């Protein structure tokens, strides 16, 4: 167990190193970068949904906070992009912490309602404050600079996103095997039972919610700089649903499931691009079929079938 813990991580690192040699053109490089960005967000969301069993239906709102912090602060106030990224992450974290306490006394449907409401409010603010956000059309984002160097090529972004991804995977694996992770799984199993053995249920739920919000905000900033443009669509309900789909299809409570879910569902719209409109139907069918036949998601189901001993 101790030895095999990082096997998957090594595999991910190996794929990341080899992948640039295999990609035929910049279209695929762009696709892979967006897969990587989604993978990190989904990792964070999976900590919340899969491990702690708490649903967030407004996670795109936090992505929006990060993305627009990185667009607005450098453009309108002359902030350094890195400072803007950190400010966005701090804002998302604080907002999450502020609303989390009352929200996490709620369960199930009420939690879904509260997070959904939060996401929609953020999205509407971004749409309406056109003076700063550019309104529904969005706004351009200045280039990211690090130690005086401007990050502007896809290759550079590839390595930055890859590095973040590897660190996130490493951190997630360790987190899940720590007392913190065991406490989260305990409260997913039975909140009352977890409480009885001394788990401070609310504090754990708040912490994991704040962490996943910060993950989402940072990746929102990265997306903003990478694409060079932000629009409120980043923060809309549909995007939150897309992220939940990635968690669910890949596998709830599975670190590598998160990666698989992000990769598959980022590629899917490209594959379906020629069938205008059917994309939505396909997403829906995949969600339903997955939940009925593989309620634990692709990776855990396959791992169980092929005799893997991993939980």
């Amino acid at each position: 167990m101790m030895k095999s813990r990082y096997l998957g991580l090594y595999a991910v690192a190996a794929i990341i190193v080899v992948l640039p040699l295999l990609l035929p053109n910049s279209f695929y490089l762009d696709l892979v970068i967006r897969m990587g960005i989604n993978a990190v967000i989904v990792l964070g969301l999976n900590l919340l949904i899969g491990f702690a069993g708490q649903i967030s239906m407004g996670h795109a709102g936090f992505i929006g906070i990060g993305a627009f912090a990185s667009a607005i602060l450098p453009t309108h106030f002359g902030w350094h992009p890195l400072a803007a990224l950190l400010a966005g992450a701090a804002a998302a974290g604080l907002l999450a912490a502020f609303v989390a306490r009352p929200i996490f006394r709620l369960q199930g449907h009420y939690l879904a309602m509260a997070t959904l409401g939060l996401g929609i409010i953020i999205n509407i603010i971004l749409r309406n404050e056109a003076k700063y956000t550019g309104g529904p059309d969005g706004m351009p984002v200045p280039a990211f600079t690090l130690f005086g160097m401007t990050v502007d090529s896809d290759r550079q972004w590839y390595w930055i996103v890859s590095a973040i991804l590897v660190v996130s995977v490493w951190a997630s694996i360790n987190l899940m095997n720590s007392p913190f992770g065991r406490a989260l799984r305990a409260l997913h199993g039975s909140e009352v039972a977890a409480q009885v053995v001394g788990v401070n249920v609310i504090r754990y739920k708040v912490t994991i919610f704040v962490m996943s919000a910060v993950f989402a905000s940072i990746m929102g900033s990265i997306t903003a700089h990478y694409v060079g443009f932000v629009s409120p669509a980043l923060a809309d309900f549909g995007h939150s649903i897309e992220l939940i789909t990635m968690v669910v299809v890949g596998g709830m409570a599975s670190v590598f499931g998160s990666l698989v879910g992000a990769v598959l569902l980022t590629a899917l719209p490209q594959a379906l691009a020629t069938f205008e409109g059917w994309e939505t139907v396909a997403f829906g069918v995949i969600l339903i079929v997955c939940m009925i036949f593989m309620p634990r998601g692709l990776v855990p189901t396959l791992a169980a079938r092929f005799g893997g001993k991993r939980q």
Partner: protein
Amino acid sequence: MFAQFLQFLFSGLTIGATYALAALGFSIIYNASNVINFAQGEFIMLGGMLAVYFTNSGLPMPLALALAVLLPALAGLLMARLTIEPIKGAETVTLIIVTIGASLVIRGLIQVWLGKGSHGLPAFSGEKPIRLFGATLMPQSLWVLGVSALLVLVLWYFFNRTIAGKAMLATSFNRVAAELVGINSGWVLFMSFALSAGIGALGGILVTPITLTSFDAGIMFGLKGFVAAVVGGLGNGLGAVVGGLLVGVIEAFGAGYLSSAYKDAIPFVLILFILFFMPRGLFGVKVTDRV
């Protein structure tokens, strides 16, 4: 001053009636199966879109409207059979995700079939506004309010005075006990989806002459209906109606007096406040967790 107040009240009650019907749909399904049906908004959209399609294809109005209620009810039945029944008793997260899947399928199919445009219906009895204390009331608003009120009465009668309705209520109180006295809980599940879908579709048809409709109109209607259901306390029929009207009226006043740009945000701000301070909704009862 008073005229303006009255004007906002009228438009709030009209749109609130639609939210109330949506909230009733949420509550009926929640009672029968413990599922929050995120596809409820799509049935509202289906009602409006199908009514537009059938009237445009030359069917007489009554037939077109009847079809626009019956087909969504059938879609609700199908949804229950294909997506909810196979995973009965699954976790909340799983159930929520399945209904979101169903909503994407319905919305996507309508987008492919009828396109992305916005459509309206002619008002049922003319466009001549009625003057009342200086405010104007569109005849269509009376249709919305009248039919909704009638529907609420019919539902009350159904759930309290008929065997079928009582069977559904019994199942919501205690499924196992209901099954023991011979109630078919599978039938109750199907009925609840068909009924909720039909009610939602009717609301969608009534409001289309006022708000127009399009393939994605169901998202906001559904979410606000959910807000209304939670405001009233999930599963509480009377609460759903009051919650719907309240959400509609507060939204209208907020849009009128505060900011029309933030109209759509108002129900969600409201629900966050209610959840923070009254986590079980206005009329909800306290429940205890069982281990």
